[in-house]
């Protein structure tokens, strides 16, 4: 299956070279040099993945990310020149699934794209965790009758935790299982995504009952 990737980047050089890399790897590539074009192209092309530069003229990359998220749970990988926490966290909170810092290695970028486009696991059947019901096949989460919209990554995170209730998963382990990293140092990814997940599934995100933090070790999903 040929995946479509939308590259949203204002620098010509990067846009072109990344496009080449993607094309060589067999993806269908479309481009947008700024925020407005990005939204238009997103709506018209319906890509399977977005590469989004955070620093864009006009509409800020963060804004684009938010707007796309209101429309779809499509995987978004942020391209960022600043690895200051506040920028990275802002991007992740706005809905990006992952980020890669410039200058990046072509091979690294392709690996992350592949990881995000990998089809999600469908085993597990129906999982119950707390008041939630997870459908592993349909990749849906319900609270009672209400469907909770989660991005594929958020669902994957919840599913991983819920498949072993009350077992503590370290951040390193989660990065491996959910994001597909062998070893990485950036645990911010996990932290922010857990926050996002909580804001969607918990009654009181500030006092989480379903996905809880185990200080010094990681996270677990429980039904106490």
């Amino acid at each position, binding site marked *: 299956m040929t995946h479509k990737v939308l590259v949203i980047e204002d620098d010509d*050089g*990067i846009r072109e*070279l990344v496009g080449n890399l993607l094309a060589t790897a067999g993806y269908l590539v479309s481009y947008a040099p700024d925020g407005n074009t990005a939204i238009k192209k997103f709506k018209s092309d319906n890509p399977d993945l977005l590469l989004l530069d955070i*620093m864009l003229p006009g509409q800020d990359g963060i804004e684009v990310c938010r707007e796309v998220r209101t429309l779809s749970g499509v995987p978004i990988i942020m391209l960022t020149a*600043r690895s200051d926490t506040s920028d990275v966290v802002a991007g992740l909170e706005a809905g990006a699934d992952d980020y890669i810092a410039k*200058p990046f290695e*072509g091979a690294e970028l392709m690996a992350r794209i592949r990881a995000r486009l990998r089809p999600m696991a469908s085993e597990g059947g129906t999982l119950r965790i707390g008041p939630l019901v997870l459908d592993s096949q349909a990749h849906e989460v319900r609270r009672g009758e209400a469907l909770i919209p989660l991005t594929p990554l958020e669902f994957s995170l919840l599913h991983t935790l819920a498949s072993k209730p009350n077992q503590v998963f370290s951040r390193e382990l989660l990065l491996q299982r959910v994001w597909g990293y062998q070893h990485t*140092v*950036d645990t911010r990814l996990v932290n922010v995504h857990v926050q996002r997940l909580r804001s969607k599934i918990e009654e009181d995100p500030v006092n989480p009952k379903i996905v809880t933090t185990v200080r*010094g070790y990681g996270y677990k999903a429980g039904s106490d």
Partner: protein
Amino acid sequence: MISLLRRSLQVRTVAATVLLSTIALFALGGFLSFTLSDGLYQSRVNQVLEETERSVGTVQNTISAAALVDETSLQVLLNSVVPSLEISGATRSRQVALLRSPGQAELQLLQSPISANLDLRTIPDALRSQVRSAGDSISYTPVAIQKGDVVVPGITVGVPINIPLAGAYELYLVYDLAAEQETLNFVQSVLLVGGLVLVGAIALVSSVVTRRIVSPMERAAAAAERLAEGNLNERLAERGEDVIAVLARSFNRMANSLQQQIQRLDSLSQMQRRFVSDVSHELRTPLTTIKLAGESIFAQRDSLDPNLARSAELMQSQIERFEGLLSDLLEISRYDAGAVVPELELTDVKSVVRSAVASLEPLAASQKVKIEVKAPREPIEAELDFRRIERLLRNLISNALEHSESEPVRVQIGANTEAVAISVTDRGPGMSGEQLNHVFDRFWRADPARKRSTGGTGLGLSIAKEDATVHRGWLQVWSEPGRGSSFRLTLPRRRDYNVIDSPLKLPPPELAKAKKNSVRSKT
């Protein structure tokens, strides 16, 4: 009490004032009391002498006037005249005694009339001899009179009298000074009470007065304290023209100046931070293109002309080096701008070490040097910034791998209740004292000629030092030429702990020998 005196200016001032006033009042009171008692005594003496003269005159005249022929009538006369001199009463009593002078040849024929209750001790012998030798004049002496339970002061006055037919006699009058004593007592107690009241009033007044002076000072001190704590808006009210107003004005000027200075520094710091951030973005964008393009060329180098292929290789390695340098420069700039806030999270220390060691396995393999990790069995957790500490350890371990000839690099973890320590030790050539002084300097290399397999930037240890400092920890090194080097990182286990002692020893026991004067270390 002593500490109160030390701490409170007001208490000290009031205490000193009260003390000095009390001494002065005591002195004055003592003087007054003395003068008064002396005056009272003197005036009584004068009165007594006058009375005595009159009385003696009366007796003498009576005796002379009576033409007495025999002792019996003389006795009768004496028995009536002498007692008439008596005055009785609670105060100002007068007792009389008519005593025959001793040592006379003729026999004593008459009885000496003496007042009842007269205590003969009130007529001392010294007075008697004085009276006898004084001719016609009156002699007197102060005495103590026992009246019931109390002893009252008195005066005994004596005069010689020649009684015809009877011989030489001495007439004594004993006056008591009870009244004067009472007056004196009364005055003294009034003085005492008055003095105490005065001291009290002085204490009160001096309290109020010093309060008025001390409280503006206290206000100024409190304002200075708040200013020092960071509240730059503190100012004092400027009222009046006195020295307190001058103090307030100076303080306010100083505070203004401080506030402006700090604001200026703040905005400079802000500008620097923004600059670093902008530069970061501006430099990284073209570098990304260069890197990606270089990768493409590098990937195809086999199909290129050998010279071009070589160019592609060189370009690729230099791009990597440039990238590392840029990254390090930006990081150090962030530290200089004060823009670094570590993201402290409770972390398993062993996992940080594992991660750093794992990422350096390829380098270790290429250098043919093993990495040994020694850690205690139990889990060790600490609040730290994973990314920074992992980077720090990678720096230390890669340096150690670079310098180690063939001996393994040892990474050791230690912990106590407040701190955790990680040491990285190699048995390479070590560093001299001079080199140790510069080891954390920017862009400094121990041996400039040494080939760097890792393409280090020269900023690694400087950044490592900053990373340790921002965690409120220590990064220290020990080295000896020919023996090796050991870098020790010590961090507090919680963000509010202080590092007092490092859980690991520097130099590590396996490197340290008994040579005392060869231990060199740098913090």
